[in-house]
């Protein structure tokens, strides 16, 4: 643009400005650079308005891949302070943005072009949707006049992503496109977080507009209840006071609502044993006496006993996923459920809530803390819980003459890192060992694909987490060989960006969890689960320019881990573990949590 448009006043109507021409592309870049930091250059195009919306929202990093229909937005990003991380695959972009959102608490941003770019994002969006992670996806789209004609790289992106996003928008007005992005940003994090998507047709981002985006704000039809009905709170408090076998079940919502502190205080003051879901890991310190750790399919035996035998469950920020509940009929069958959740649609969806407390977890648990005057009389119950902790200890055998046990490697990594180290994982056996044998004490240090179970999540998540974490926080990806193979092209990104991350591949040359299920339920027929051969991941890492390590024996574990962690840049440790190692305890799908198996013959 040869001259600057005047700044737009916020009082103008949003929808009915008809003056903008949509056809003309911008002629050239701005002729003068902004010389002061105080006033940003006014926007001149839809694309600039998109980038301005991100800048106004405080976005510092974005993850994406270039392509035809998103080029105008990338052109606008070229002049922005936002650090764009060019990923090797769009799936990696959406996982990185997801992990960034988990660790920072702010929406992670991912970008992709139309068609295959957008469809490659879908796995990451579905993951964010299942786990309620704040993510904003911006996708290029073919020009509006081509939409519906099966144009080159055209996909009905809003149609494809509707079931896996919290909301999505096809942005059709240049004057509105920046505000659409602002709104998507607000919607991704307010209330129950989730992924949002704005589809950006190329003619809209190319079009001239001087309209600055509005502040990030949710639309009027979006209402979120923060405080629970005091009557229900009082009733729930009375139930807590009268309970003899209380349990707190902390879910991912506790971490998202920054409610870990208030939940810890509440549990400790009233001496209530605490169980977490998988996304809730880190909400309560696992080294605390009251911690029963994770419940569910591969939860600890003691967590599952506590859940099965409690008479009162204070469930906070959980959607009672089937991997947690096992069979509904046998889930906490003696318990009255106090369910705290910000999403009314989660109340009584799977498990009936006797005391539904709709609202923000931090606010509602504070309300509850205020209303509970007497601690429950539960000395016997606490002793019982401690007894279960010793009866169903997670101790495992690690004979020197057998291949390395994966549990040992996880413990060694935990030992070698600080309490605030961030752990990301892929999906499968290694993920479960990472849950079970790493002692988590802080929220936002456990980053995984919980609900969707997306193999390949670990490495791109480590990349996203690295940008969100503090410099003194190590980022460790505990991966499986199968999962790592799905997204290891992300190593090119980690090397290019010189990211200090450590990937430990627990390599058993199997799709291990499937192999374990085949042994238990399919007569040991290892259909398509036995790789029998894997690339040398340490050598492969070196080819990418990362540092490669390999572990075959117990006596190499500690030193190699130290060396890999000390390396200032991406490192990969190929750990050859016992290929027969299995994950226990295990509740078979739909089974009774209290009847968890400790060995294969108990399944």
């Amino acid at each position, binding site marked *: 643009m040869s001259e600057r448009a005047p700044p737009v006043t916020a009082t103008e109507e949003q929808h009915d400005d008809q003056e903008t021409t949509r056809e003309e592309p911008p002629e050239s870049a701005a002729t003068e650079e902004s010389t002061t930091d105080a006033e940003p250059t006014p926007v001149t195009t839809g694309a600039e308005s998109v980038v301005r919306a991100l800048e106004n929202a405080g976005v510092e990093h974005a993850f994406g891949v270039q392509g035809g229909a998103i080029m105008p937005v990338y052109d606008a990003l070229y002049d922005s302070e936002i650090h764009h991380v060019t990923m090797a695959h769009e799936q990696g972009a959406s996982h990185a943005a997801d992990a960034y959102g988990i660790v920072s608490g702010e929406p992670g941003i991912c970008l992709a072009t139309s068609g295959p770019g957008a469809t490659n994002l879908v796995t990451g969006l579905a993951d964010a949707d299942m786990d309620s992670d704040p993510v904003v996806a911006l996708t290029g789209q073919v020009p509006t006049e081509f939409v519906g004609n099966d144009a080159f790289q055209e996909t009905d992106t809003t149609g494809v992503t*509707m079931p896996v996003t919290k909301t999505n928008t096809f942005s059709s007005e240049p004057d509105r496109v920046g505000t659409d992005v602002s709104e998507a940003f607000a919607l991704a994090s307010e209330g129950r977080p989730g992924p949002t998507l704005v589809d950006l047709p190329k003619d809209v981002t190319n079009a001239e507009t001087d309209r600055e985006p509005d502040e990030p704000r949710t639309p009027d039809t979006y209402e979120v209840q923060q405080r629970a009905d005091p009557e229900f709170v009082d009733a729930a408090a009375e139930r807590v006071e009268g309970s003899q076998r209380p349990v707190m079940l902390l879910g991912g919502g506790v971490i998202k609502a920054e409610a870990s502190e208030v939940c810890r205080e509440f549990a400790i003051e009233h001496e209530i044993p605490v169980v977490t879901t998988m996304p809730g890991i880190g909400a309560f310190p696992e080294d605390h006496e009251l911690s029963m750790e994770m419940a569910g399919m591969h939860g600890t035996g003691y967590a599952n006993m506590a859940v099965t035998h409690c008479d009162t469950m204070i469930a906070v920020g959980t959607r009672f996923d089937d991997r947690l509940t096992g069979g509904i009929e046998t889930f906490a069958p003696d318990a009255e459920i106090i369910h705290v959740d910000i999403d*009314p649609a989660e109340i009584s969806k799977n498990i009936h809530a006797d005391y*539904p407390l709709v609202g923000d977890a931090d606010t509602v648990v504070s309300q509850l803390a205020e209303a509970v005057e007497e601690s429950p009389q539960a000395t016997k119950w606490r002793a019982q819980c401690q007894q279960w902790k010793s009866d169903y200890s997670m101790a495992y055998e690690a004979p020197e003459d057998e291949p390395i046990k994966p549990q040992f490697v996880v413990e060694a990594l935990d030992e070698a890192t600080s309490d605030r180290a961030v752990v990301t994982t892929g999906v499968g056996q290694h993920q479960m060992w990472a849950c079970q044998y790493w002692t988590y004490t802080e929220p936002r240090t456990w980053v995984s694909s919980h609900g969707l179970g997306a193999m390949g999540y670990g490495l791109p998540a480590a990349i996203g987490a690295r940008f969100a974490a503090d410099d003194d926080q190590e980022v460790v990806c505990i991966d499986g060989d199968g999962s790592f193979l799905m997204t290891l092209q992300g190593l090119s990104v980690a090397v290019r960006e010189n990211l200090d991350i450590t990937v430990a591949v627990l390599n058993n040359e199997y799709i291990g969890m499937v192999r374990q299920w085949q042994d238990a339920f399919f007569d040991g027929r290892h259909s398509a689960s036995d790789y029998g051969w894997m690339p040398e991941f340490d050598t492969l890492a070196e080819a990418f320019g990362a540092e490669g390590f390999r572990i075959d024996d117990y006596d190499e574990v500690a030193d190699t881990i130290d060396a890999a962690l000390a390396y200032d840049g991406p490192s990969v440790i190929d750990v050859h573990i016992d290929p027969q190692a299995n994950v226990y305890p295990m509740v078979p799908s739909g089974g009774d949590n209290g009847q968890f198996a400790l060995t294969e013959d108990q399944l």
Partner: protein
Amino acid sequence: MTRDQGLDGPAPDERPTPAGRRNKQGIRIDPEVEARHEPRRTVISALVEHEPGVLAEVSGLFSRRQFNIESLTVGPTDEDGRARITLVVEEPDPGIDQIKKQLRKLLPAIAVRELEPDAMRRELALVKVNAERPDQVAAVADMYDAKTVDSSPQTATFEITGARQKIEAAIETFSQFGIREIARTGTTALARGTDDTAAPTPPESSASEANQQYTQPADDD
């Protein structure tokens, strides 16, 4: 290769077991009396922003979550930019609650409620029958207050409005002449009197709704 030895601890049959049980809907029940919620038919009315994609969102929601839907109608309202969607659904009480809550989550949804059993429900049907016995056809049409929309030597087409039961009764009666084609609109509905069909719901009511004890109201119209 040696098999994984697993973990130590009391075996499943050595552990205490709780006395209680839940039903399929996650509600605690007396194990002796297996309580089940029977599906019932009801009308849910949603006031929504009249914008592209709303209908796809609503219909997608129903198929995705396996809610049983009988009919869905949509049309503009007296307010610009707002449409009313009327859904007839058949679900047990917990399912009906879930439908309302999920609909409320849709961004374009302004207000969602279930109508009382006495709500005014109407449907329109066009019924094209063989006109070989015109007098008898006319008599049946008269019986159901059906209006003649079109007639030819071979066919007669009638417009019938009314509650679903009336339409179905009319169709059944007309069938003796041979029905050539039928088109039905599905039920649309309004609450009676000063009761607002889609009064915006205060947020707390969603919680109270969740806590309601399920009863089985008689439902027919």
